[in-house]
């Protein structure tokens, strides 16, 4: 296994992933030293979503479990921080373990039902349960309901100050690296092998004596717990939480991050997250600039907000023409050299 691990690390997709990860570390810090605070925040957001996408990749890419409800854990994690802070509990030593525990519990309860089903049922049920969580938080008027909840005090951690942007960024980045490392170890462990085996051929895994349901449920709970931790970080980062951050279209974005980057690869979701969040941020202004260039901006005055149109077309094109995602693309071109 160790030998296989070394071989995998040498693949061009992983090399590209390491470069992206290094840039994700260096660029926000340079931005901080040169006074571009916006880019520190942007980097933090990318890192947190990359962590959440990585957790989805564990079940989607390696387990073949197409969960269309992963954004629910963002909301659960973020609301755990928000509601604790609402009652005056500010300690991160409480927030983060609690967010992980609540998310794991939600994953355990819903996963136990979802995993009884297969295929398209599974997709729709994960979606439905996530929407249930969405409506639940929307109906809680005490915590802002549809309007959301402002977190006035970020989580406190001993020796750290999360109000200081580079420190929040570093906490998020270190978390991402740890999660990537743990995922790497997990996927190449016996557990990971069985999980990938259930994706490839469940009957054979059952014949080999594995309880595939239990393996899937364990993976589902781990993915939910990690995503909940990401959600808690996101709550601390944005200091404002609303049900909209866990809407089902957000789950779709998360899935696209994984698929675009390359499902079932180590760094694919990180690359996918970078591309999607950069597009989300800059596609609109780029379109506006492009429209100005051809003097047609007047015809489409709202084009800055219409970035979803080319984004959606890209998504359709990726699905129809480039199934391996970015990682597959890099491997294909990198492999020839």
């Amino acid at each position, binding site marked *: 296994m160790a030998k296989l691990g070394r071989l995998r690390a040498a693949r061009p997709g992983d090399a590209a992933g390491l470069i992206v990860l290094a840039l994700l570390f260096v660029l926000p810090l340079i931005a901080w030293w040169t006074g571009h605070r916006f880019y520190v925040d942007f980097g933090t957001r990318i890192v947190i979503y990359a962590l959440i996408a990585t957790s989805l990749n564990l079940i989607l890419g390696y387990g073949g479990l197409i969960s269309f409800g992963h954004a629910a854990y963002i909301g659960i994690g973020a609301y755990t921080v928000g509601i604790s802070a609402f009652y005056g509990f500010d300690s991160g030593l409480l927030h983060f373990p609690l967010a992980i525990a609540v998310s794991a519990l939600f994953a355990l309860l819903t996963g136990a*039902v979802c995993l009884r089903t297969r295929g398209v*049922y599974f997709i729709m049920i994960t979606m439905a349960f996530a929407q249930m969580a969405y*409506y639940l938080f929307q109906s809680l008027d005490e915590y802002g309901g549809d309007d959301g909840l402002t977190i006035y005090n970020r989580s406190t951690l001993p020796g750290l100050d999360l109000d200081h942007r580079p420190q929040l960024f570093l906490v998020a980045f270190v978390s991402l690296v740890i999660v990537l490392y743990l995922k790497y170890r997990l996927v190449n462990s016996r557990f990971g092998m069985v999980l990938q085996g259930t994706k490839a051929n469940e009957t054979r895994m059952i014949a080999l004596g594995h309880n595939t349901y239990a393996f899937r449920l364990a993976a589902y709970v781990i993915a939910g717990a990690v995503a909940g931790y990401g959600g808690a970080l996101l709550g601390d980062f944005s200091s404002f939480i609303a049900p909209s951050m866990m809407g089902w279209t957000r789950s*779709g974005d998360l899935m696209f991050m994984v698929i675009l980057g390359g499902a079932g690869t180590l760094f694919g979701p990180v690359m996918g997250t970078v591309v999607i969040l950069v597009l989300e941020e800059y596609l609109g202004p780029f379109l506006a600039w492009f429209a100005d260039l051809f003097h047609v901006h007047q015809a489409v005055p709202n084009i800055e907000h219409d970035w979803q*149109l080319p984004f*959606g077309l890209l998504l359709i094109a990726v699905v129809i023409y480039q199934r391996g995602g970015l990682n597959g693309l890099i491997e294909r071109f990198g492999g020839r050299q």
Partner: protein
Amino acid sequence: MDTGLLVTQLLNGLQLGVLLFLLASGLTLVFGIMDFVNLAHGAIYMLGAYIAAKLTLALGSFILAVALALPIVAVIGLILERFVARPLYRREHLDHMLATFGLLLVLDSLAQIVWGPDSVSVPLPLWLRGQVTLTSGIELPAYRVVIVASGLVIAAALYWLVNHTRIGMLIRAGASNRTMVSALGINIDLLFAGVFAVGAVLAGLGGMLIAPITDAAINMGNDIIITAFVVIIVGGVGSMKGAFVAAMLVGLIDTMGRSYLDGLLKLFMPLTAAETAAPALAAMLIYILMAAILALRPQGLFPPKTR
């Protein structure tokens, strides 16, 4: 208990049920035959509402607008089938979900470019604005009665189409064995395109019917589509009968839960606790129903026999 309120809430529940059926029947028809999952189905519902709204404002007649909007939505359905759905039939469900999610983003933002971000209200003809008086002096909004009645008529028509016509026979045959149907010389591309268009028309009609009540709005399809998924999961994916029963069940339970749950909880809970818990529980009710049914019957209430 106030009988008038109860009857009104029952009607509202049936109305939601009818809308859910219009969406779920199209979804389940397309899934049952092409094995294709369409997330953009809710966007077609939204397009139907907008097209009918704009035509009503242009022509001055809601009925005429709906009559014109239906073939337009059918054509949109045919175009989407040809360029997005057809290349993906042989792919995995994951690919269907992602591509149609992209399609949903495209259709939502196209609608926003063409019609702007504001919602559009739809004026009803005078004769539909009034109330229908029941025997015991209970008044019901005429238009809501019309929605429920037309939904039931459509359900009956679909039942007849699927079970008693040659096309229906082909549809059922296609659902149970696609290869055999095409081997018998049936043009399967044409059949698939037709079924997709019928699904689009049903969803579009749902949007048109609800537009005078809720207005046509960009995101209107994105909420209800998930509830429609709950309906077809509960009913059994691919089953028309299941879609109908589950749509009515979900529509009634959701509406009744929202109106009566706090009263029910107050019977055995402190007042303030009931007032907090009731909306939260009402919001989760249909999902709890879904989980309960799945725990007992993982294939839904009426799973199709052939799958």
